[in-house]
Every structure is written in structure tokens, then in C-alpha cells.
């Protein structure tokens, strides 16, 4: 099953700061919902373990996260795929683009695509859109919190 969604958030920090945070594995780990570990293999490649919990369902996904199409301080694509064992697999990515906003702020635009397969696709059809949306929302909410300083990453 695949789904797409997009949105934008306004961040009270200049582009350079936002870009730096977008490339900081510690920040990403803090923002990815359910992220249990994120280990860097190279400046653009990471290994991740993420626990996804949807009501009574909980599944642990292990996989890779990669930063692609990098145009510094302008845009990149964050791409990930994970295997959740018996639950199936998930693949997805977000194209993220930054624009200068007013008063030294930054507008962040995102286009998310996600695909799931295996048991979660076979049984979870009614929930997949909602869950994907919630995870994307949570990620950018967390990220906003990092930028505003409401969430401390250290």
C-alpha cells in the first residue's frame, strides 16, 4: 500500500541552522517517531531501529536511512526502508525543501511517499493512511520543537 502526503512548517530559525539540524543524526533520531537507535555509517547513510506502535500492534523495524539529492541549505531527500519481520516492511521518503521566510525564519516544505508491504498491508488497510500521516506529522512537529528549543537533543 502506498500513500503520499505533503505539508509545510514555519521554523523560527535561519536556513543554515535548519539545514544543520536536518543533517544531524542525533536530531533525526529524536524526531523520527519511535526511533530506538540511529547509527551513522557515513555522512549520508545511517542504520535505524524504529518501534512502531499502533494501538495493540507494535512492531520493530530495522533498516537503513539515507540522505539523497543533497543541495546544501536548499533541499534533500531523506529515504528509508525497514524490515519489520513478520509484520512486513516499510519504505518511504520525504523530499524536503527550504525557503527563506520572513524575519529570519525558514519555510520547510515536505512531500512524503510511503509504501508498506506484508502483513501490515494485508491487514491494516483501514489504518495505513492515518498512521503514515500521524508519523509524518509527529516527525515535523518534533523537528519544530527542536528548532524552537522546546525539545532538547543532546
Amino acid at each position, binding site marked *: 500500500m502506498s500513500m503520499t502526503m505533503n505539508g509545510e512548517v514555519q521554523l523560527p530559525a535561519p536556513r543554515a541552522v535548519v539545514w544543520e539540524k536536518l543533517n544531524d543524526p542525533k536530531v533525526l533520531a529524536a524526531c523520527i517517531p519511535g526511533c530506538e537507535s540511529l547509527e551513522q555509517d557515513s555522512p549520508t547513510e545511517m542504520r535505524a531501529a524504529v518501534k512502531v506502535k499502533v494501538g495493540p500492534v507494535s512492531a520493530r523495524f530495522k533498516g537503513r536511512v539515507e540522505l539523497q539529492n543533497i543541495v546544501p541549505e536548499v533541499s534533500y531527500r531523506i529515504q528509508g526502508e525497514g524490515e519489520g*519481520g513478520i509484520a512486513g516492511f516499510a519504505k518511504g521518503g520525504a523530499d524536503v525543501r527550504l525557503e527563506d521566510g520572513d524575519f529570519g525564519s525558514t519555510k520547510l516544505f515536505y512531500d512524503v511517499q510511503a509504501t508498506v508491504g506484508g502483513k501490515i*498491508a494485508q491487514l491494516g488497510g483501514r489504518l495505513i493512511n492515518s498512521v503514515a500521516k500521524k508519523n509524518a506529522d509527529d516527525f515535523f512537529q518534533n523537528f519544530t520543537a527542536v528548532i524552537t528549543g522546546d525539545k532538547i537533543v543532546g
Partner: protein
Amino acid sequence: MSTSGIGQSVRRVEDIRFITGNGNYTDDISRPGQTYAFFVRSPHAHATIKSINTKTAAAAPGVVGILTGKELAADKIGGLICGWMIHSKDGSPMKAGAHPALAVDKVRYVGDHVAVVIAETLNQARDAAELVEVEYDVHAATVDTATAAKPGQPQVHAEAPNNTVYNWHIGEKDATDAAFAKAAHVTKIDLINNRLVPNAMEPRAAIGDYDRGTGTYTLFTTSQNPHVARLVLSAFIGIAPENKLRVIAPDVGGGFGSKIFIYAEETVCIWASKKVRRPVKWVCDRTEAFLCDAHGRDHVTHAEAAIDASGKITGVRVKTTANLGAYLSTFASSVPTYLYAPLLSGQYNIPNIYCEVDGVYTNTAPVDAYRGAGRPEATFVIERLVEVAARELGRDPAEFRMHNFITTFPHQTPVIMAYDTGDYGASMKMALDMADYKGFAARKAASAKAGKLRGVGFSAYIEACGIAPSKAVGSLGAGVGLWESAEVRVNPVGTVEVLTGSHSHGQGHETTFAQLVSHRLGIPIEQVTIVHGDTDKVQMGMGTYGSRSGAVGMSAIQKALEKVIKKATTVAAAVMEVPEDTIDFNDGIFEARGTNKKMAFGEVALQAYVAHKFDSEKIEPGLKEGAFYDPKNFTFPSGVHIAEVEIDPETGITKVEKWTAVDDFGTLINPMIVEGQVHGGIAQGIGQAMLEGTVYDKSGQLVTASFMDYCMPRAHDLPSFNVGMTTTPCTTNPLGIKGCGEAGAIAAPAALINAITNALGHENIAMPATPQAVWQAAKSSPHKIAAE
């Protein structure tokens, strides 16, 4: 007249065990020392297997063995086969890729079999299966039927370029085109015949059991045709020679076609039982059934009818793309070809028909016969076409049909079939009466007042049952003959065992077959036992599918019964010391004309076995006869179904208000059972038309893989059915039986969609007509709603 003979609604013999919980289904059987199999399946629709690592899994508690395609190949176990060769228009044979029971290099649909884990308990097998590491290189998938053959699509099998298995055709193209050139009116429609999941309530299951002492394999399995399973497992897959392979299909909880086929799981279980030196049991869970049981239908069709100025249909032109799935299942190739296009003449006198069918591979579950198999698809095409034509021409759909009905028999259609008999007008008239068609306008007006849309729809279907004769089907590409066998064993005290090659999985053979015996031999039904489903007991037979057990299976029994009576007559004549030709046999009594000598059937049986009173040099002792019956022709059940619906345009909910079915099945053995078959078929047809949708997403994930998303018809979705019968006995078999198992499923979808489109006032809706689809469609309905 006996109360248990032909034509009586005898209560079923088999019911006693089912209603008391004493049925014996495959999962109810346990073998000493049995182990449990769980399959590692592909989560991807299309991928290359880079590696399979079973080390950790093999060390898990309770694991007895883990087997993959490599071991299967090393043991020279052959792939699964498709038993019907179809040739393309250009004469080339169909292009089929290999179908190993366990994937070797590639997986081609979600659920494809990668490895089997065998353990002491099912939980242990499942636990260990999670430890099998499979590395995939995932490819894009081909999923969509209509575009699968377009250049540039991902290729499912290298052997079938552009995913095309065959481009088949039937009929006279030039003559048909000429009819269209001269037509006064042409009706054109585009249809999708939605993919269905059979969902017999008993999931498939298998137990493989290898006896090291005798070198014999026994397979208990959920099969509609255990002998065919043995033949394929033996001669093609190469498990063991037939004499070392016993297949038992005990009580089977519904089939609907899905249990005809020889699948990977039973193949693996029986092979593995020798590898692990223990019986191996596998029981499918429902999600696995959704993924891996052969699905049904899945056609995309453009159809046209040419109509002359008088309203006669002069030609039909059809172009269909049929999705065959990722591999060719056992009879997959025949379903959208010879079981489909030859039915496109329906009940109508149509001089010119031409049909082209492209069979395509996709990365989806294999598609094969499902209740009706090709005939529901054909009926949907012709009955939608005729209905739309009548509407376009402003004619009453019932009258327009009758105007085009075949009225003289035998009738040769332009697409193979020679209809032996029928009276289509009689069924239509009876159905119109039963449905109170005259009162429809008033009911429609009342609905409109309440803000509802009411519609009525017809389906005048024909089907071809009891595929035959064997020589003819052989010439069309069938890999087997389609006769049936029977053996009638009379015991010394006159009780009778009938061993039949047919297989009952809900049809009630233990009752209907016994009724025939009771009727012919004049003995109580309690003295008759029907034996089926065990290759060690029953002679080679072909099984049950295609509504063949009455027309073909019972004809074989009838033939064997005649031989028994002949032999018994000889014995009776010798015992009574009268000439054979003076003996009459009626109601179980052999009576010598012109004398007071008579013997009951049981006495003759005893005499045949004790052999005291005749010369055994001239008359063999014993009373047991066998027969193989090969039909002369198909049979052609037909009928008219009328659906009446009411739509709530606000929610899109369609309520089936009335259902009228008038069927002509020829001779009825047990009307109660026949009506039951009709009910079940209608329910499945209604399911197809408005409830059941199989959805694969673009990447080939099955997103309707449970009853949570695949809507099975429930009691509250359906009305009671009003069923009537007309009778024109079949002229080509001894009992006059036509077959009744699939009629409802064949007739119903077109009737219901015709009713819904009649209510909507336009043709723009596809199956399944779900509430959402109907709500959408109702928005563009030209009918004004009073309440709005």
C-alpha cells in the same frame, strides 16, 4: 414409488455427522508422530532471491527440518503444471514459465513459497520461520490486467514476452465484421469482471505421510479430485509412482473450484514427509488462503453487439484480457478460453460471434476456475450487452430477450456449442410471473416517493456443464479425459457400496447418488453407501467441478447399475431355472413372466455369492460391476434470474428486495439439494456484484487479505430467494440431468448489475457495486428523487 428415489427431497445422509460435530475434515486428522509445516512466504510481489539463510532457524527449538527450492530441485521434484494447452491465433503454443513448488531464484507474487519450516509444534514452526533470513532484490511489479501486456511492463516470466501467455481467438472474424458493417444499431460496452477470492470456509490443509516399510506415500488433503491430484503428483511432479501414492480427500468443507488444483503446499508436505521421516501437517490460515488460493475471474472486456432493424442480434464481437496471475495454475489456461467464449451466444440465436482473448501474467496470485469458471464471465458480457442494447433501442428487456431467444433444438452456435434442448421462453414467462414484473412500475413509484431508486434486472443465462466428450476436449488442448467412473459393489446380503470418482464437498452425493441406486435397485436408501475420496478404495476418477457429478458421475453409476442388473438377471434366471429374457426387474424384484417365480434383489445377491445354484463355468460368482462413462456432449442448463433492488441514494446502500430464479436443470434427483445449490450460487453472484472486491495495490500487495476488508456475503446482505424450475431433460445422458452447481453464480452478477443500472438510469458502474460506488453513481442519476 419409493420415498427415497429420484425426484424426492430426501433429507441428507451426510448431515448427521456434520450437525453433531462428527465430520472428519483434514485438520481433524492427526497422524502418530506428526510434525507441523509453516511456509516462509514472499512479502514482495516481484523479487530476486539473493540468499536464504536457514542456520539460525534450523537451530531453533523443535525444528525438524527446513527445506527450500534447492532441495526440491536436487530431489528432481518437478514444477506444478497447467494441464490445458492453449494455442495462440498464430498457432504457437502458450508461453508458460516454470512453476516450482518452492521458489528457486525469483518470487512472483506476495505469498509465493520461499521455504518450509517443519517443527514439532506449529508454534515452534512459526517461531523458527521468523528466523529464516531471506535477502531479496525487489523489482517493480506488474499488477494491472488491462496494461500487463503493454511494452515496458515488468516481465513476470522471461518465457512470456510482454507478459503474454497467449493471444487466442474463436469464431469467424470476417463474417462477424460483415454483420457489424450491415448493422442498424451497434451497442458497445466496456466491462471489468472483478477478481474474486473463493473462500471455501474450510481452509486448505494437507498431511503427508511416508511409510518407510512399504515405500508408500499417503496424502490427506482438501481436494475436489483426489485421483487427479495423485496423477499430477505422480506423473508430472514425480513424487512417486501412482501405485505408491495414496491420496485421501476426507470431508472437504467447500471447494468452489479452489480445491481442484494441485498447489505447492500439498506437494511440499508429501515430499517433505520422506525427507524428515515424519508425517507433515499443514493447515492454511485465512490470510494465507487469500494470498495463495487460486483466485477467480479478473477480466477486462470490450464487447459489441450488432443488431438489425428488426431488433435481431446479428453479431457479437468481444475482446478480453484475462489475468492469469503469476503462474499458470492447474486449469488456468482453459478458463478464459474454452470455458468462456463458447458461451457468448447465451440463449440467443446469434449467427456471428468472434472473440479474442489475451491471457496475461501479472505479479498476483494465480487465477483459475472459481464457481462457474469462464461461464459467469461470458454471461456477464452477453447479458449486460443484451440489456444495454434493449435500453438503447427503447425495448422492454424481457421482450427483447424473447425476441432473440433460440426456439428450435438442437441448435448449433457459431462458437462450438450444440445445444441439445431447452425452452427459454418458458423460463422467462414463469420468472416474469413469479417476480410480478407487471407490478414493478408501481413498486418503483412507491420507492421514488420514499426517496429511493428501484430497479429491476434480468439475466437469461446458459451454461455448459459436464465438459465432454473426452476426445473433443482433447482436441481443444485438455491434458486429461473428462469421463467419470463408478463401481457398484453388491454385498452378499444385498447392501450396496458405490465407489464413485466424483467427490462431494457440500453437494450431498452420499444422498443423491444413493437415491439413484435406491430408485434403480428398489432397495432402501439405508442399504446404500457412497464411497469417494480415496484413491486406494476407488478406481481412477476425475472428481467434482464444473457441475459434472450429476450429469457425468451419476451417468457412470447408472451405467454400472445396468450392468449389475444384467448380471443379477442372469443369476436370477439360473437360480429360478427360467430363460433370462422372461425376467422383469421392478422395485427390487426379479420376476419371471408367466410364472409365480420371483426373487428379491437381496436373495439374488446372496445366490450370486454363494454360487450354489448355477454353473460357475458359465456364470462368474459375485455381483460387482464397474463403468466408465464418457458423455456425448456438454449439458446446457439455462434459466432466467430477475433481481429487484432498492437504492438509498443518500448512502449508496443497495438492498436486494426480491430475487427470482427459474432454472431448467433437466431431471432433478433431489429438488431440495438442487435448490440449495441455486441459493448458494446466487449468494456468490450477489457477492461478486456488490460486495466482493479483491484489491492489489500498485506494488502488488494484496490489501484485501482478510474478512476485515474482503466482504463476504452475510445473512443480512441477502434476501430469501424465490426459486422455480422448468424441465427439459438433457437428451445426451441416460438420466436427463443437466447440472446445477454453478447456475446461481453464473446468472446473478448480470441480473444484479442490470437492476442497479436500471435503478440508476445509467450504465456507469463497475462490480463490485459497493455503497461508495453506488453513491457516486447515484449522483449522476437522471432520476429525480422526490425526497431531495
